[in-house]
Structure formats: C-alpha cells, structure tokens
C-alpha cells in the first residue's frame, strides 16, 4: 500500500468549490419593503450581487394618465411614503411651474414647514430601522415615538397620519390650523431629545460603530457617476443640496447648514441623516417665525383652484367652475417641464408632459432611490454577507419610490 502521507505542495490538492447562490428574497425582514438580492457567495464573501427591484411596481405613471392633474396627488403620496409631504409639494411645484403660477408667501412657508417635518420623519424611520436591523431595538422604538409626534402634528393639519394628499395645485387643501405653530414648537424639542438619546445609545457602542464604519464605501465621483443625490451623496463628500444650489420656495431666506460626510461609508450616511434632522429643526423654527398668521393659502387663479364652498352652494358660476375642475381637471397649458426638489432621499424630479387638457399626458417621476439602489451591487462587491444589512439600510430604499 502506498504511504498516505505523501508530501504535497501547497495548492496541489484542491477541493472543487462551486460558488453558492443565495436568495435574499422579496419577503425578508431586512429588505425594506421588497427587494430581492440574488447573491453569489464564496464562503461569507459576496462575489456578485444582483439586486432585483420591481416587487412594488404599482404602475403610478400609467395611473396618472387616467385621472386629472389633481387626482395624481394621492398616487404621489404613496411614492416615498415615509415623507409624503415632500412628494406632494414637489408635484404641486411641478404643475405650478407648468401653469406659471406662484403660491402666496404664507403657503410657501407652510409648505416648507410641512416638508421639513416629513423629512424629519423620513430620517427617523431610516435610522431607526437601520438600528433595529443591527439588533438595537430600543433606539428604533424611541425614534418611532419621535415620529409619532411628527405624525400627530401632520394629523392635526391634514387629517391623516401618513398619506395626506394635502397638496393642491396652487396651494394646499386647507389653511394651517389655529394652533399649528404652538404644536410644532412644543414637539420639536421633544423630538430632538429623543434623537439625542438614541444617538447616545448607539454612537458609543463599539459593535454598532464597527458594523458601520468602512462598510459600503463609495467615493464621491463614483456616486455622482451613478446618479446618486441626497444624503447618500452628501455622505461621500459631495456638497449637492438642491435647497442650497437651486433654492425653491423660500429656502434661500432661511439659514441652515448642509451636513457632509467624509468617507462615504455607512456610518457617514447614518450620521448625515441625524445631522439633517437638526438642520430641519432650524429651518422649521425660522419658517414658523416668518410665516404670517393670516392670509391666503391658495393663489386665486380660478383655472386651478377650487372656489369657496359657500359660493359653490349658492352661485352658479362657482358651481360650474367646481364642476369643471373636478370632472375635467385643471387645464394645464401644453408643454413639458422638469421640476426638482430635495426629497428625503435626494433629487426628486417630476417630468410632466401636458397636451393642454385636464388629464396628464405623461407624469414621470425621477425617484432618487432608484439610482441609489442601482449602486448597491457595487457597494456589496467583496463584502461579507452580514454587511448587506447595514449597507442596504443606510441607502433608505423606499419600495414605493424605487419601483414607482
């Protein structure tokens, strides 16, 4: 019998190894909403990641072509459903750009405050969910408690906690409630306090930091070439914020900073969002100072704005105007426009094509997290399986927006 202990050189005896395919399926606790990642693994290391979206495609663009311009507002709400007010305001601004109307000043401040509240809610949800997936359930509950306070204000204003459909072409659906400023001013310090408690718990934790630091790194130029915008881009060091670069509403009249990250890793994306909550608080406080207590919220353009209800009940002209606006839709002038605002995830753009009628010809939404999720496979190359969870969480991929 041959001796078994033959001297073999390193590498001569190679065991066959096939890469393992793992499916992180569409229904998964860490896949916010629904995303499917088909992974090719070699041990714990990811060789290739194929990110498949589209599990929440709801045909928003096709549905918009079937209603009126104002009937798009509920669909738009459900795009980025953690910050629906920002979507409403963005779409309203797009249609107003096409119609060539400007809303009164009080409405601009009002939209800014509601938008920043929605942004706070978005960042709280993203950071809270990220913490929860890494095992820190308590800060998630604290952030959700803070989010409930934001939602209380929004419920008092709009009637709904989540999908308000509060924006209208030419203004908002209702004027601010009597106690709006008091509610905001009372809630903001409590929200910040909860954010600070969460920060204290998370950022001193060695395990949390190590799971996030230097994970999912992307450089500024790569991120720009991928089409990233928003907090994810700013975490990579590129200072592009539409509120500063191309101010809309009254953002050029308030004072706020834009937090920028250094290394473009997951920890930076987490911290940038927390810092943005504080900046949003500053914007809200300044806007509440500047917002008048009285005055019109809707512009008085009869082509797009519904008349006063009392007039509708008592005069024939208002009835006809109401009827035409509801049944046929506001007649938006023919043309096309691309209007962009800073959404929760970045540049939220609407490309509208109008044929002059009351029904939109084409409503295209430019979803910020579509491009961001497109870069996920690049971020995951040669990382480990457990890095997927914080990396994907830090991108804040919202299914409704990504799959529109």
């Amino acid at each position: 019998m041959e001796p078994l202990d033959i001297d073999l050189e390193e590498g001569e005896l190679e065991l066959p190894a096939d890469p393992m395919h793992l499916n992180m399926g569409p229904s998964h606790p860490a896949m916010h909403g629904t995303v499917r990642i088909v992974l090719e693994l070699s041990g714990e290391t990811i060789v290739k990641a194929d990110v498949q979206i589209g599990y929440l495609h709801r045909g928003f663009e096709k549905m918009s072509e079937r209603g009126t311009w104002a009937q798009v507002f509920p669909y738009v709400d459900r795009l980025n459903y953690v910050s629906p007010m920002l979507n409403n305001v963005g779409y309203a601004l797009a249609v107003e750009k096409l119609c060539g109307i400007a809303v009164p000043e009080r409405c601009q401040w009002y939209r800014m405050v509601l938008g920043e509240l929605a942004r706070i809610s978005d960042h709280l949800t993203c950071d809270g969910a990220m913490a929860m997936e890494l095992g820190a359930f308590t800060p998630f509950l604290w952030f959700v408690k803070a989010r409930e306070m934001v939602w209380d204000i929004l419920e008092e204003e709009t009637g709904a906690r989540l999908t308000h459909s509060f924006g209208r072409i030419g203004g908002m659906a209702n004027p601010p409630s009597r106690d709006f400023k008091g509610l905001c001013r009372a809630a903001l310090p409590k929200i910040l306090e909860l954010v600070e408690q969460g920060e204290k718990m998370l950022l001193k934790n060695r395990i949390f930091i190590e799971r996030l630091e230097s994970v999912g790194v992307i450089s500024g130029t790569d991120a720009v070439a991928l089409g990233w915008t928003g907090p994810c881009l700013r975490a990579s060091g590129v200072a592009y914020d539409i509120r500063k670069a191309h101010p809309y509403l009254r953002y050029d009249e308030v004072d706020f900073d834009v937090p920028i990250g250094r290394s473009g890793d997951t920890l930076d994306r987490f911290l940038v969002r927390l810092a943005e909550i504080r900046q949003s608080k500053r914007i809200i406080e300044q806007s509440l100072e500047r917002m008048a207590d009285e005055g019109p919220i809707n512009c008085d353009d009869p082509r797009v704005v519904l008349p006063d209800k009392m007039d509708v009940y008592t005069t024939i002209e208002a009835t006809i105007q109401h009827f035409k606006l509801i049944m046929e839709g506001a007649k938006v002038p023919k043309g096309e426009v691309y209007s962009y605002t800073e959404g929760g995830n970045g540049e939220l753009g609407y490309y509208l094509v109008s044929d002059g009628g009351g029904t939109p010809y084409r409503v295209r939404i430019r979803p910020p997290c579509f491009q961001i999720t497109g870069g996920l496979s690049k971020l995951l190359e040669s990382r480990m399986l457990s890095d997927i969870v914080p990396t994907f969480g830090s991108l804040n991929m919202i299914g409704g927006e990504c799959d529109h």
Partner: protein
Amino acid sequence: MGDVNRSLTVTGSEQGFATTRVDALLGWARKYSLFAYPFVTACCGMEFMALTSPRFDLARFGAEAPRFSPRQADLLWVVGTISQRQAPALRRIYEQMMSPKYVLAFGTCASTGGFYDNYTTVPGIDKIIPTDVYIPGCPPRPEAVLDGLMLLQDRIARNERRPGVVKPRVDPLSSVDGLVKLRRSAQDPRELVPELKREEEAAMALAGPVAEAPPGAKR
C-alpha cells in the same frame, strides 16, 4: 383547523362537554399567542411599525412576536400592495405555513387592490390566498388594525372561518344628521346654510314628536 378538532372527538359521540371545553381552551391559547409573519411591502408597513411602537402596543394582544420563517408563524399579516410579481412569493409563503393559519389583509391594497386598478397589482390577496379578516384603510389607523386583530381573535376563539371586514367605529350613516362633521369646523355645517336648516326644521315640525334613535344605532 378542523382536522385538529376532529382528532380530539371521542369516536361515536357528538361534541360533548369535554371537547367543547378543550376547543375553548385551544381557541383561547391560539388567539392570545399569535406568531405573526409580517409580509410587509408598502406604506401600510409604516403603520405596522407604528403598531409595534409603545403607543399602539401590539404586545398586549400577544401578537407582537414576529417570526420570519413561515414554518414558525401562524398569522400572516399581508401589509401593503401585492404586485403580480410578488404574488408567487406570497402564495409560496402561505403554502409553507402550517395549519392552523390565519391571514390578515392589512390595508385596502391587500384587501382589494386599492386604487391601483392596473396591469401590475393583484386586486386583493383573496384572489391568491384565503383571507380571514380585511382591514380597510389607506393606511388604516392603528386603532382600526387593532380592531381587526380583535375581530380575528374573536373568530379564532369561535372557530369561525368566514372572513370578516373591520367596520369603522362610528358608522357615519347611522347618526341622525348624515352629514360628515369636519374636524376643524367649529360650526355645524348646517348652520352655514340657512335654507337647509329651515327645511329641516319644517320637516321635523311636520313629523311631530318622534323618539330619537339612540346614537350609534344601525338603521
């Protein structure tokens, strides 16, 4: 669920006292220890997160423990819109669950497809899997969801498999006015329109003294 009960019946006899007690015990145990599989897709997921938060505590119903393996879960929360692409995954998850299993359609999109009447949305999960309780709302308030959960618990206790729909707490049609009172209007809308008020007073005068229906009574 019926299979389990049958195996406990004493052969040859009808449902006796002992088996009804056992049924009641099983029903009680099942309804207060539901292991949820949150099949979360869309905006309703935000309300689902709010449900687990301290304000609308789901833990007091015993239904907070999420089990992300269908083998270990007995309540499938279908939260949010189910697209055609997602439907096979949902069907697979449902089939992998073991009986007794219950399905909760959370939100209008899961119940009927919502206002996404198009090429890509399943018009309600009952087209794919049998559903026990439908919770309408877009998204439903957490209180409505808890109502739905209590409705489901009731059905589990009574071993009732017919589906149920969560109704609003105050039926707007059952109150005498029939007019929806807006939250922020300080006045009764009828005060604003004097003609309506006059007409109503005239009608009431004609009708004579009539016992007013108690609030909340269904017509």
